[in-house]
């Protein structure tokens, strides 16, 4: 009996490898579509819709069909279960999505075993792509953003900084990379603050930062309501008036929350791979198409991560059909022009290499807030895997 199903598994794996011609290849998208993180799923879906409008439903000789599955929130059990079902029941040959690191890590053994190329649209911990040779990432990693921010601070005469990060894995990573880079170039860290995840009242931290009186503040807070209230309390508590600059990663002011921050946000500087205000024909086109499909939606990093993720998926499908190994080979070193600028997939760690922009919040011609790009670090790789 046992032999029997081992054989069955092998047969399935083979069926995956051989593939038939003129077929439909299914791509499973695992992301939160319900609950507090549903915004990610929504942005991904819109990004994919815009992509399909641009490139059609055919990749090479194959038809492509997206199958969506809800992973709720940071919930590795559900993530693994729905992925397993996608692979076994729906017979998907490619996967995409994955917002949270644990959700991506939980499927690593599955995709390695089934040799399913998986494009991560968000999960930003460096280590993920090491856990399976079938992971490719089109978002960014935390060190990729916070390293350049430190370089920019030094280059612009900022000598003392207080770091304030959310006290969990990604926050600690951002803090460490920033401090390492900043101190290596002669900057001084006056104070390190780690704020509990569930903090909503930031006034005490602001008082502490104010009395530290640094040139600038470096912040990492995951995108969402807490980032919003942090930014608000930065100006409410007079830090802006005291001349303490606000530096951070783009998570604090992504395009879906930016307008709500109000004028208090003007002058905030963040490092990120994508701004909706990026000046390029491709970006204009993407924004116009999104507006045509979903007039109320705003393009942000998640939209573009999914769009570029789909680009990589299509390239892999066109090149390799259902052969997972060949698909990953096709993705390695892939170079193209994205709405965020020139990007490529690093052949060694399969994470994206991209420009990191330093952006300043400013008012545009329409009187809306935007992340205006003021400096570009060209072709930044995933700095986290260099160490």
């Amino acid at each position, binding site marked *: 009996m046992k032999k029997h*199903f*081992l054989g069955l*598994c092998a047969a399935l794996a083979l069926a995956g490898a051989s593939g038939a011609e003129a077929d439909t290849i299914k791509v499973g998208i695992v992301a939160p*579509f*319900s*609950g507090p993180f*549903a915004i990610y*799923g929504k942005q991904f879906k819109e990004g994919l819709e815009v992509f399909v409008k641009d490139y059609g439903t055919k990749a090479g000789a194959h038809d492509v069909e997206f199958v*969506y*599955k*809800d992973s709720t*929130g*940071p*919930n*590795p*059990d559900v993530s*693994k*279960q729905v992925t*397993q*079902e996608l692979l*076994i*029941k729906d017979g998907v040959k490619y996967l995409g999505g994955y917002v949270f*690191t*644990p959700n991506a*890590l*939980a499927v*690593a*053994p*599955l995709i390695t*075993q*089934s040799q399913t190329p998986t494009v991560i649209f968000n999960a930003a*911990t460096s*280590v993920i792509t090491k*856990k399976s040779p079938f992971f490719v990432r089109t978002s960014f990693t935390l060190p990729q953003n916070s390293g350049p921010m430190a370089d920019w601070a030094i280059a612009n005469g900022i000598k003392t900084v207080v770091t304030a990060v959310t*006290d*969990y*894995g*990604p926050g*600690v990573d951002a803090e460490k990379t920033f401090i390492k880079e900043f101190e290596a170039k002669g900057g001084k860290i006056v104070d390190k603050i780690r704020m*509990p*995840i569930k903090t909503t009242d930031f006034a005490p931290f602001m008082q502490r930062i104010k009395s530290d009186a640094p040139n600038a503040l470096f912040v990492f807070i995951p995108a969402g309501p807490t980032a919003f209230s942090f930014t608000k309390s930065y100006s409410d508590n007079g830090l802006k008036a005291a001349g303490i600059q606000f530096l951070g990663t783009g998570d604090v002011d992504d395009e879906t929350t930016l307008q709500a921050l109000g004028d208090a946000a003007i002058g905030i500087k963040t490092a990120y791979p994508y701004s909706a205000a990026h000046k390029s024909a491709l970006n204009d086109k993407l924004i116009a198409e999104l507006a045509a499909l979903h007039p109320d939606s705003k393009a942000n990093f998640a939209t573009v991560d999914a769009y570029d993720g789909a680009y990589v998926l299509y390239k892999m499908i066109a090149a390799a059909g259902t052969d997972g190994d060949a698909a990953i080979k096709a993705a390695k070193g892939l170079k193209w022009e994205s709405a965020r600028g020139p990007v490529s997939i690093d052949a060694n760690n399969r994470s994206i290499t991209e420009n990191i922009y330093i952006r300043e919040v400013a008012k545009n011609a329409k009187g809306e807030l935007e992340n205006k790009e003021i400096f570009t670090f060209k072709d930044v790789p995933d700095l986290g895997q260099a160490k």
Partner: protein
Amino acid sequence: MSLIPRDRRLRDLAILLGMALVLTAAFYAFPDNLAFATRVIIMMIFVLSLDFVLGVAGVSTLGHSALFGAGAYAAGLCAAHGWNEPLLGVVAGAAAAAFVALLSGLFLMRTRGLTLLMLTIAVTEVLGELANKFSDITGGADGLDIVMGPILGVFKFDFRGQVGYVYAACMLLLVFAFLRILIASPFGLAARGIKESPARMRAIGAPVYWRLVAIYTLGGALAGIAGALSAQSTSLVSPAVFDFQLSANALIMLILGGAGRLYGALFGTLVFMSVHEVAASVDPFNWLFIIGALLLAVVYVAPAGLLSLPDLVKRQLRFSR
């Protein structure tokens, strides 16, 4: 075993056999959904343990995920440090969760009602924060990924989740049998007595506080088993195991099925998770509405849970006659 009357023992055996049959049937009926079925079974074990603590003994808790999480991390850490035999992990998970339940129970069982509710939540939050803070040991928010060895060195976890399913199903049968025996024992009677009236139990000389601590510890061990199984089948432990939502969901499943009856725990879990699964795959974007409607309907029509429906219908028929 001699505590249980002979006919009851036979009935229990028949019930267990029936359950085993249903579990086997499910294995063949849904070969593509074994990952989901395994999650349901693990959740059943968790809700059974909550049923024992809350439904049988009347300890109101919203912090049962503290014990689930303790079990998950114990099993995860075992596997991460080389002891990746799953049964060993389950034992470690049960022991760790029992220990946490005992420690916190010594303190918690002195309180009742709302105070108890708040404190159980607090314990969960503290443990969750510890898992987050000590990221060198626990992997923090990224989670602790583990590689499980074969069960008893023979049965390897397979891609389709067949071994995982059988493994979890056996655990469920064991836990269920254990609880049936326990609840029928004098200890179980004492637990029910405490739920009915702690004052009267004290009056007849029962050491209510120590009984409660023992109940909580036992319930904790069972929740720990569920946690360990969950860690092993996902091959990853993250701080999500200490999520308040987990405790709340378990409570909803229990209430849905009918608290205080073991079948209620099984049935409520099955219905809640199946509806959740079907709704979420039919419409991954708006399924929460369906779950909400289901809960409203059940609470309105059958406040004592789905298992009370037959009685309810019978009573209605008698009235209308």
